[in-house]
């Protein structure tokens, strides 16, 4: 990872009470590349993303986007404003139809007129292969796969420079998961965005990663290009990717 860092976690420490979740974690996401973070449950992968989103303030250290520290809780942070996020659950707003979900940022932050915002929402739905008749439905009327696509459409609608994906294929059948992986790859390339994903799904990792980092015990155990995982540069990473436990 020798390219310019778009996002950098610099000695980030996060504690919840007596539990240290991240312990001086250092990692960089190179501009224009897709970084996938893997690791066991409870290792702090989601917390890591939330520090970059400004949702959690580090106890020590800082997260930088374009060299500027992210200011937690600030709605107008220029770094966070570049991010489109796909949540594990989709996190679409129940009270709004799909098109208003997809164009939320355009309507409320960019103050775009409703007609224009709807057009952009329909464009985004096209990009994730959803029919236009979905636009006026409520999120509760969509299947799991459609919900993920609609959430992806929301993430890309404002043409962000950074995309975050939190467990993008969790809970989906293999075929739908494959569709989501391909959509993610396509959108990241089309937007030329920097992508950071967290996943347990190794098929997903292989489909969307340029670089991989494994988090363990609050720090980065290993990071490198995807082929480093495949050639087993680190035995622990290798075991994790193969799904092999240490129990005989």
């Amino acid at each position, binding site marked *: 990872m020798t390219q310019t860092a778009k996002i950098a976690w610099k000695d980030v420490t996060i504690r919840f009470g007596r539990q240290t979740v991240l312990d001086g974690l250092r990692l960089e996401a190179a501009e224009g590349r897709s970084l996938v973070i893997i690791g066991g449950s409870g290792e702090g992968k989601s917390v890591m993303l939330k520090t970059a989103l400004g*949702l959690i303030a580090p106890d020590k250290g800082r997260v930088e986007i374009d060299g500027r520290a992210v200011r937690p809780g600030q709605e*107008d942070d220029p770094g966070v404003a570049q991010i489109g*996020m796909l949540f594990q659950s989709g996190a679409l707003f129940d009270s709004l139809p799909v098109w208003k979900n997809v164009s939320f940022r355009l309507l409320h932050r960019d103050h775009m007129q409703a007609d224009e915002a709807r057009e952009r929402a329909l464009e985004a739905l096209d990009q994730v292969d959803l029919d236009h008749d979905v636009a006026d439905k409520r999120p509760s009327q969509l299947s799991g796969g459609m919900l993920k696509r609609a959430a992806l459409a929301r993430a890309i609608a404002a043409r962000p420079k950074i995309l975050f994906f939190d467990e993008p294929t969790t809970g989906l059948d293999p075929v739908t998961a494959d569709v989501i992986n391909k959509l993610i790859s396509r959108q990241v390339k089309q937007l030329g965005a920097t992508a950071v994903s967290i996943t347990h799904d190794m098929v997903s990792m292989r489909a969307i990663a340029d670089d991989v980092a494994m988090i363990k015990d609050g720090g980065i155990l290993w990071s490198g290009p995807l082929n480093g995982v495949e050639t087993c540069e680190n035995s622990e990473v290798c075991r994790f990717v193969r799904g092999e436990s240490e129990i005989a």
Partner: protein
Amino acid sequence: MNPLRAVGAGVLTLLHAAGSVTWFAIRALAAAVRPPWFGGQLLGQLFRIGFLSLPVVGLTALFTGAALALNIYTGGARFNAESFVPNIVALGIVRELGPVIAALMLAGRVSSGIAAEIGAMRATEQIDALHTLSTDPMRYLIAPRIVAGVIVLPILVFIADVIGVFGGFLVSTNTLDFDATVYVRNTVDILERWDVISGLIKAAVFGFLLTLMGCYHGYNAQGGAQGVGRAATNAVVSAAVLIFAANFLLTSLFV
């Protein structure tokens, strides 16, 4: 466990909660007075908190006024003071029962609803999603609800006052043999402007408290469905307690 330690822990928990609610209220008020404002959200909340609460507030006020008239008549008869029914019904409803009953009904209907809705949004990461869409949840979710509560409660209480007095009038003229004209005249004569205004000021404060409690408990909900249920319960209980406490304080100021 050392009893002193238990008392100390309890006091610290209480102080922490009070500080946390106060800080939340300050952030909400700051969001309410500074642009950008979400007018659509505010209109929606005015409709949901105000218009949709009319039936429950109206019916409660009607029965409360009617029951109050019967009780005052029964009590007044013990020292030949039955004729004071219209006066006491009017004062009791406008100064005390109208605001308190309406606020308690809304604590049940609105505080719990707000806490459940926002709590569910917390549990399903919708509040985090608002952050990522460069929208402050304090502005989009919290401020419109609290502002709507402060605007709507006085209107609802005014309507409750009229309906409550009318409930007393109906019972008094139909079953207690009061003359309708005399009843209305006595009601109008006894009421002063400050009686009505003080009740409406109470209503605005109650509207703030009950929406604040709904928002606070929902926003800080933890632990999935169970946490959402707990938030709704806590919102109703804390709103009711605060309404009674604020009612006492304001009544002390206004008498």
